[in-house]
């Protein structure tokens, strides 16, 4: 144990000497939440309809009242090409005549519905036209001595079980995804450096010549990589806590709040994942012959956890995913942010599975390091 600690300190010292590559590993943890929040801020502004929406209204003098109504709700005509949105409302030539006879009067809404930036504005205009139509309809009935409630036979009350937090589930799912991923990214450089790199510098053989078992060697390296991975998680949690609070989510009708208890839970969940990540990355790197080769393998291997977490974030996968490592933990965390109870059984099973895989990988590594082929990269 003492020897493991000595080795562990040596590994950390080694890693810390190369400050630039240490930082490179942690850039992800610091940068991702900042970039994501920046993107969301831009996106929120683009997706929401502006307070004053300018569109083109053709034949406006045929429907003065409708145009006035729209203006009072912040939608008006403009000829200024710089501020006008690409939405056109065409009032039919027969509009006044049809109105006067109590017929349905024609207005045509011309717009590209696939344009994400316009969708909110189009929905808004549609809703306003619908409201205007309903209001006119009610008044027409009143003018004929009929109560407008007659034509609303159903009164539908919606009782939404969502909370302000759970409505932001999609965003939070993405946030959890970046956090789990940071476990894999943050320690990756160190994992390659301390295995394939050490071999390339010929210091691995030197290490093994010391009175030290391969088990102690393997575990000290795993612990060093794990602690780097966890450092990445702590960083991303702290940066996220502040970055997500800056985005005006309330404009989309929900809130994103990373509570201290959630942050603690996230950290605890990340511990077994970090062990898995470390042993996976180390064993793959040891199998590679050179530093470069290790990098290429790891990029491919990283794809597996990425897919697992991704699949559960977007709920495209079968139920079995909730019992697999990584995706299971991701789903358990999602339940918590949605304000539901922590699925303890699921979390324990998947965390145990994660640890088991990590142990198996460590054992495999331990045995392979006894082979000269691996030690000298033959």
């Amino acid at each position, binding site marked *: 144990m003492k020897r493991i600690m000595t080795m562990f300190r040596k590994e950390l010292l080694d890693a810390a000497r190369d400050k630039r590559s240490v930082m490179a590993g942690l850039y992800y943890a610091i940068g991702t939440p900042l970039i994501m929040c920046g993107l969301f801020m831009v996106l929120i502004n683009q997706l929401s309809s502006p307070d004053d929406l300018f569109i083109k209204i053709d034949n406006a003098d045929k429907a003065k009242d409708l145009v006035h109504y729209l203006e009072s709700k912040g939608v008006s005509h403009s000829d200024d090409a710089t501020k006008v949105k690409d939405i056109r409302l065409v009032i039919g030539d027969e509009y006044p005549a049809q109105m*006067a006879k*109590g017929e349905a009067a024609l207005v045509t809404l011309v717009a590209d519905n696939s344009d994400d930036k316009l969708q909110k504005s189009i929905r808004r205009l549609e809703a306003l036209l619908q409201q205007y139509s309903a209001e006119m309809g009610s008044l027409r009935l*009143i*003018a004929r*001595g009929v109560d407008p409630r007659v034509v609303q036979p159903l009164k539908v009350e919606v009782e939404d*079980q*969502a909370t302000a937090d759970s409505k932001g589930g999609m965003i939070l799912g993405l946030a959890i995804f970046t956090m789990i991923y940071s476990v894999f990214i943050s320690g990756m450089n160190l994992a390659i450096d301390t295995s394939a790199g050490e071999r390339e510098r010929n210091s691995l053989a030197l290490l093994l010549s010391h009175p030290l078992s391969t088990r102690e060697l393997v575990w000290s390296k795993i612990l060093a990589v794990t602690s780097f991975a966890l450092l990445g998680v702590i960083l991303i949690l702290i940066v996220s806590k502040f970055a997500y609070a800056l985005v005006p989510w309330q404009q989309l009708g929900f809130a994103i709040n990373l509570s201290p208890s959630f942050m603690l839970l996230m950290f605890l969940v990340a511990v077994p994942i970090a062990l898995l990540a470390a042993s996976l990355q180390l064993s793959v790197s040891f199998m590679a012959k050179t530093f470069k080769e290790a990098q290429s393998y790891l990029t491919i291997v990283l794809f597996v956890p990425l897919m697992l977490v991704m699949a559960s974030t977007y709920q495209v996968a079968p139920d079995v995913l909730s019992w697999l490592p990584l995706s299971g933990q991701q789903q358990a965390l999602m339940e918590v942010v949605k304000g539901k109870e922590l699925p303890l059984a699921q979390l324990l099973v998947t965390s145990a599975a994660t640890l088991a895989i990590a142990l198996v990988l460590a054992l495999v590594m331990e045995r392979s390091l006894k082979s000269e082929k691996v030690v000298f990269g033959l």
Partner: protein
Amino acid sequence: MKARTRYQGVRRLSLLTAATLLAVAGLPAKAVDTHQLEKKLDGASESCYLSGISDRVRCGVVKVPENPAKPDGKQIEVHYAVLPAIKPSFPNEAFLAIAGGPGQSAIDHADGFDRMFRKVRQTRDILLIDQRGTGRSNLLACDDGAINALAFNDESADTTAEAQKCLDAQSADVTQYGSLNAVNDIEAVRKAAGYQKLHVYGVSYGTRMAQLYLKLHPEQVATTILDGVVPMQQSVIAIGEAIDRAVALLLADCKANEACNSQFPTLEADLAAVHTQLAQAPVSNSVRHPLTGEAETFLLTRGKFAAVVRLALYSPTTRALLPFAIHEAARGNYQSILGLYGMTVGGLDMAAGMHNAVVCGEDMHRIDAAMKSRLEQSYYGSEMFTALNKACKVWNIPQVAADFADGVTTDKPVLLLSGNLDPATPPSWAELAMANMGNARHLVAPYSGHGIARESCAAGVIAEFVSEGSAKELDTGCIEKDIRRGFYLNASTVEPLPQKSDKQDAAKASE
């Protein structure tokens, strides 16, 4: 404990002429039925759903003594609801919205407040309180039994007997339901809900409550918004003159509007003619009931007609129909009047007993001889005064102290809002209210009626005022915007009718 509070629609036909109606009446009629309230009696709030709001909100109850002078006496429940902030950036503050009436339930109008104050709610909780005597808080309603609203003759009704019947039906001590006790209830709710500061919005009669709260608890007030202002110095019974003013404005508007004037050139005479005719004798019509479609007799009295005109003025949409309805009525077609009457009967959800408890104690005695003779000049003024005078004699509520009528003196930020077309609280009332306010600003929307926060522009200004905490730098350009809508020219359209003489258009239409 889970209790279902069923709230009966409080419809009181005599209210049509008698009520001061400092309320916001709108189209379509507000839903006033079942709500699920999960309540706890220790003042804490629990999650619940309110009609028209799909989100979960919080509902709570505080127990207060009915009579503050007897703290150990009878306790009543004051219900409140909190529409939680989307992002609670100011957990110690709430935006309190006070409903009008007197007698309207704030919680029943939660969906309206939610829509109006969406921007405020992004960062602050919205607090709604059913004032004592309204809604779920020991409702003082008057049940008018099975009166047939269409055939009922309001002019032959015995106001005194009805007021007595209503009073007899109350089990509460009706002298304890005035504004002053209700202000203490606000304090109790504020403490129970755990807020340190309130932004207080009052509409109509609610502005009296907001002013009283500012007067009595200034240290808890962050900002005050008065929308459709009833100054402390003013007896609400003077509203009769405001109604006449709004009717005159309607006639003038139609005259100034080319399409309306050419369609209804004799509108003023038409209105006078209907009044004169109905004053001689009510008109009886065989009609279909607006809602059920069954054959009924519609007895149109002058009182009902005047009430229809008055109530239609509250909402810009029904106001647009008035010239057509009056024009047709003068020609013996009462369908539109019937339709509007159906709306007013269904749309009045006021606690009549609470209304009396407030008006009789706080306003009746303030009508002096000079005011009385002025009111007698006006049809609306004199009818309302006569009816309320009879009711108040029966109810016999003790007068509030004289200092009740003192205006509010404050340096706190206050935003006053008026609509120029208001049939209840004209802009001049707001000027009176702000006489002693050092940090107040008055905005008049030239084309709006009673309660202008319903319009998106004013709602945005209020949100800005609440977040800035000062009225000085507000962007108020949109208040002046011409939002005038067209008048109905027949039963179907508001757009100018196509000219029959224009052959080109006619040819096009026939193609």
